C-alpha cells in the first residue's frame, strides 16, 4: 500500500488545517497565488512517491550537501514523504551489486516514470574511465538510466555547464548532461551549489504540477533564475549612489557599500541569492562581505578573476551609468551563452513535440 504525503502528515498528528497552511506556504514559496493552494493540497493527498535515481558523476557532492540543508520542506520530509530516493550513492544503505541492482529494479517497475537527477557530469576522455562505477565508465550508467527516465534534473553547475573540472583545459573532458543526452526533457538548476530551498522548491513544483516550471532559453526555471543578483541586492542603493568598497576591510566595507569595484559578479549573475538567500534566508555572499563569484553562470571559472571589475567604468552618478553597466553585463552573458541558446532552442522544440 503506497502512502501519500498527506497521509504521512496526518499520521504524524498534523491537522488538516495545518496541512492546508503548509500548502499555502508552499504556494507562497513558489511565488504562486492562493488559487493554487487546493491544487497543491490535492496533489499531496493523492500521489504515491515518485522514484528518483540520483546519479553522481565527476562532482564534489556539494549539491547533495546543499539539498540536505533545505529548511522548507525539510530534507527528511522530502526523502521520507514526497519522493522515493531509490538510488543515491551518497545516502543509500546498499553498496556494490546490491546498489546497482536497484537501478534495474527501478527501470523494470517504473520504466518511463521516474526522475533522473544528476549531480556532476561524465568525463569523456580516458575512455570515460576517470569516473568508474561498478567497473565501468559512469557515462554508461548515465546513458542507461537516461534512456528509461521520464525527465532529468541537472543539479548544479557541473551537470548544467561542466563547472570546475570543465574549466580550461578540461583535462578529463567533463561534459554537461544536455550535451550527452538530447532526447529527454532536462531542467538545469545551476549554482555551485544551488540554494537548498531552490532545489526542494523545484522538486516540489514538479511533484505538484506534474510538469517542469517554465524554463528560460538556457533551460533554467524562470522562477529562480530570471533576475540578476544585482537587481535585488540590498546594497544596490550604494551602487546607484556611487558608494563603493575600495579595498577589503575599509570603512566602506564596514558600512556595507557596494562590492562592484571588488569584482562582484552580481550584475551578470542570474540566481536567487539576493532574494531567497542562503541557508534558510540567513545571508548571502554579498551580505557577508565578499562579492558574488558568479557560480551559477556557464563557464564562470574562465571569465577572469573574482576580483577583476566587470567593466572599467570610472566613478559615476546614478541611473544612466547603472543602466550602462547593466547593458554591458547583458552583452557579456549573451555572448557566452549564444551556443547554449541555440542548443536549448532545439531541445525545447523537441520537448514541445513530445
Amino acid at each position, binding site marked *: *500500500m503506497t*502512502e501519500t504525503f498527506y497521509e*504521512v502528515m496526518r499520521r*504524524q498528528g498534523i491537522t488538516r488545517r495545518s496541512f492546508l497552511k503548509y500548502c499555502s506556504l508552499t504556494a507562497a514559496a513558489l511565488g504562486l497565488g492562493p488559487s493554487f493552494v487546493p491544487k497543491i493540497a490535492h496533489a499531496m493527498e493523492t500521489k504515491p*512517491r515518485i522514484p528518483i535515481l540520483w546519479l*553522481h558523476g565527476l562532482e*564534489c*557532492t*556539494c549539491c*547533495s*550537501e*546543499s539539498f*540536505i*540543508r533545505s529548511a522548507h520542506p525539510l530534507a527528511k520530509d522530502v*526523502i*521520507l514523504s514526497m519522493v*522515493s*530516493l*531509490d538510488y543515491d*550513492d*551518497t*545516502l*543509500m*544503505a546498499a553498496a*556494490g551489486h546490491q*546498489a546497482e541492482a536497484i537501478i534495474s529494479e527501478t527501470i523494470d517497475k517504473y520504466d518511463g516514470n521516474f526522475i533522473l537527477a544528476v549531480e556532476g557530469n561524465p568525463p569523456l*576522455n*580516458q*575512455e570515460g*574511465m*576517470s*569516473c*568508474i*562505477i*561498478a567497473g*565501468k565508465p*559512469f557515462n*554508461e550508467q548515465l546513458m542507461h538510466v537516461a534512456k528509461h527516465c521520464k525527465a532529468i534534473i541537472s543539479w548544479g553547475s557541473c551537470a548544467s555547464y561542466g563547472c*570546475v573540472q570543465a574549466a*580550461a*583545459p578540461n*583535462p*578529463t573532458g567533463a561534459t554537461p548532461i544536455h550535451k550527452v543526452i538530447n532526447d529527454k526533457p532536462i531542467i538545469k538548476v545551476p549554482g555551485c*551549489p544551488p540554494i*537548498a530551498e531552490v532545489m526542494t522548491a523545484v522538486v516540489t513544483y514538479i511533484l505538484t504540477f506534474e510538469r517542469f516550471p517554465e524554463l528560460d532559453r538556457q533551460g533554467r526555471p524562470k522562477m529562480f533564475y530570471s533576475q540578476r543578483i544585482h537587481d535585488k541586492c540590498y546594497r544596490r542603493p550604494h551602487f546607484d549612489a556611487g558608494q563603493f568598497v575600495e579595498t*577589503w576591510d575599509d570603512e566602506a566595507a*564596514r*558600512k*556595507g557599500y557596494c562590492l562592484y569595484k571588488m569584482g562582484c559578479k552580481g550584475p551578470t549573475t542570474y540566481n536567487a541569492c539576493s532574494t531567497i538567500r*542562503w*541557508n534558510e534566508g*540567513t*545571508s548571502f*555572499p554579498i*551580505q*557577508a*562581505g*565578499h562579492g558574488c563569484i558568479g557560480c551559477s553562470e556557464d563557464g564562470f571559472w574562465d571569465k577572469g*578573476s*573574482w576580483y577583476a571589475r566587470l567593466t572599467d567604468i570610472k566613478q559615476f552618478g546614478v541611473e544612466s551609468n547603472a543602466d550602462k553597466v547593466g547593458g554591458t553585463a547583458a552583452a557579456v552573458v549573451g555572448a557566452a551563452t549564444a551556443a547554449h541558446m541555440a542548443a536549448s532552442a532545439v531541445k525545447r522544440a523537441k520537448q514541445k513535440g513530445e
Partner: protein
Amino acid sequence: MSVTTTPNGYDLDTSGQRVVIDPVTRIEGHMRCEVNIDENNVIRNAVSTGTMWRGLEVILKGRDPRDAWAFVERICGVCTGCHALTSVRAVEDALGIQIPPNAHLIREMMAKTLQVHDHVVHFYHLHALDWVNPVNALKADPKATSTLQQMVSPAHPKSSPGYFRDIQTRIRKFVESGQLGPFKNGYWDNPAYKLPPEADLMAVAHYLEALDLQKEFVKLHTVFGGKNPHPNYLVGGVPCAINMDGDMSAGAPLNMERLNFVKARIDEMVEFNKNVYVPDVIAIASFYKEQLWGGGHGAINVMDYGAYPKVNYDKSTDQLPGGVILNGNWDEVFPIDPRDPEQVQEFVTHSWYSYPDESKGLHPWDGITEPNYELGAKTKGSSTNIEEIDESAKYSWIKSPRWRGHAVEVGPLSRYTLAYAQGVEYVQEQTNRALGAFNQLAGTNLDAKTALNSTIGRTLARALESEYCADMMVDDWHALMNNIKNGDTATANMDKWDPSTWPKEAKGVGVAAAPRGGLGHWIRIKDGRIENYQCVVPTTWNGSPRDPQGNIGAFEAALMNTPVERPEEPVEILRSLHSFDPCLACSTHVMSEDGEELAKVKVR
C-alpha cells in the same frame, strides 16, 4: 603459495574467494574495494581503488593565486571550506602575509564548525547504517527506548515514549509503503547487526534529529562566508568586516546581531555533541564490543601537521599538536615539517600516473604527475569493464603519500593519538571519560591503546574531536568579542594584496586539520601567477595503494584479518572503510608540468 609479507608486517594471501564492492556507497566520490577471504570468511588481502579524478591542479596553472581558494574549495563539497582555508594559508605563506587575529579566530570557528558538521553528518547519515538497522527499530518498545535514552543521555530533552512512538510510526508507514528509498536493498537480516531494537529506534530518531540540526550548524559559515556549502574566503584575512556600533552597522557583514547568531549556533553544536553524538557512539559501540578489528595503522602509525593554535603562527600553542608516531610507540613523537623534501613524498608505482623513476617518491613542491591509466595483465574483464583488478600493477587514481617512506594513517583518530600521547589535558581527560563509560556499558576493561586501534576507536575519536571542536569554538567566540572590546576590529591585511608587491618567484605551504585528516597544499608562484599547485589530501594518505616497497595503506591495513559474517553482504568492510570517512573527490588529483593532454589509456 600466494602469500606475501609486506614490509609493514601484513601477510597478503590472494588464494581465497575474491569479493568486489563497487561502488562503495555512503562516501564522498567514487571508490571500489576488492578483498580475498579465506575458508573461514576472514579477509586475507585487501585492495582499495580510487575510481575518479578531475585534474583540478592542471586547471589552476597560470591563474591568479588569490583566486585559487575557490577552485580548490570545489575539490570537495562535503568537507567544504577546508581546501579554501588551506589554499589561502599556502598563498599567504608564499607571499609572507600575516592575517589579523580576528581573521584567524573567524577562520578557526569556520574550520571547527566544519569539523562538527562533517563529523555529525558522517556518523548519522553515512556511517550509522553500518551499525544501525532501521527495519529492526520497528520491533522496539517506545517506552523501553525512552528509558534507554534517559539512561544514555539524561540531558537530552527528546526522550518521551510518545516521541519515540511517533518516530516508529513514521518509519513503519515508510517501510510498509514498499518504497524503501535510501534503505532499499540494505543487509537488514544480516546477523552482523547487533543492536537491540530500542537502540536501533533511538539511533533512527537521532538520524532524523541530526538531519534537521546539521543545517543549523552551517549557518555559522553563512554569516562569515555568505553561503554553505562553499563559503567565501579571502587571501589576507576574511571578507566579513566588523561594524559593532558605527553608522550602518545593520548592513555590515558582522555586527552584534550577527555575532549573537553565531554564538547561538555554537551553543547548539556544543549541546548536540554532549547530549547526543558522543553518548550515541559510546552506547552503540558497547553493543559491538567483541568487534575490535579494523585497527590497521590506527593509533599505531599516525601523522598530523598539528592544528588549532591559540596564538596564530605559533605551532607550540596548537590545541591538537601534530607529529608522527610509528609502530605504536606513544613515547616518541617525531616532528613533521611539510617543507622538508625528505619527509612527505608521493609515489605512483601502483597509481594511474607515471614518473620517470617510479621507485622514488617526490615532494609536492617538485611533484610531477602524468596520468597513465593502464591495467595489469591479471585484470579480469576489459579496460572499460573491470571485473577483478590486478593489484600487482597500477590499480588506483590515488597516489601513495608516505612520511619518510612509512605508510601512516591520518584523521581524527591520528590527531587524538598524537594529542593523547603529547599530554593534551582536555583530550586525555575526555578520552578516558569516554572509555570509562564504554567499559562500564560493555562490561569490559580496555585501555586507550587497545580500544583506539580499531574501527570503533576511529569512530569514537571522530565524535570526541567533534565535541572538542565545539568547545574550542566557545573560546574562539569569546576571544573575538574580547578583541573587539579592546578596539581591534581589523579583519584583513591588504599590504600585499596588489601583485606588484610580490616577489618574482615564491613558494609556500598551507596545512589544516581537514575532517578526514591532515591536509596540505603546496604552491609555487611565478610572475604573479600559479606555476605549480599540489594538494596532498587525507584520503590520499588513507586510501593509498601499495608503495614501491609493497607497504599497504591505511584502508587496506584496516580491512586485513577482519571476519565477515556473510561475504555476499560485506557490511564489515563498509564499517571499516566508512570509519575513515573516505573522500574520493579529494584524494584524486593531478598536476601535469606542462598542462598538456593528460589522457593516456592502455591495457597491457
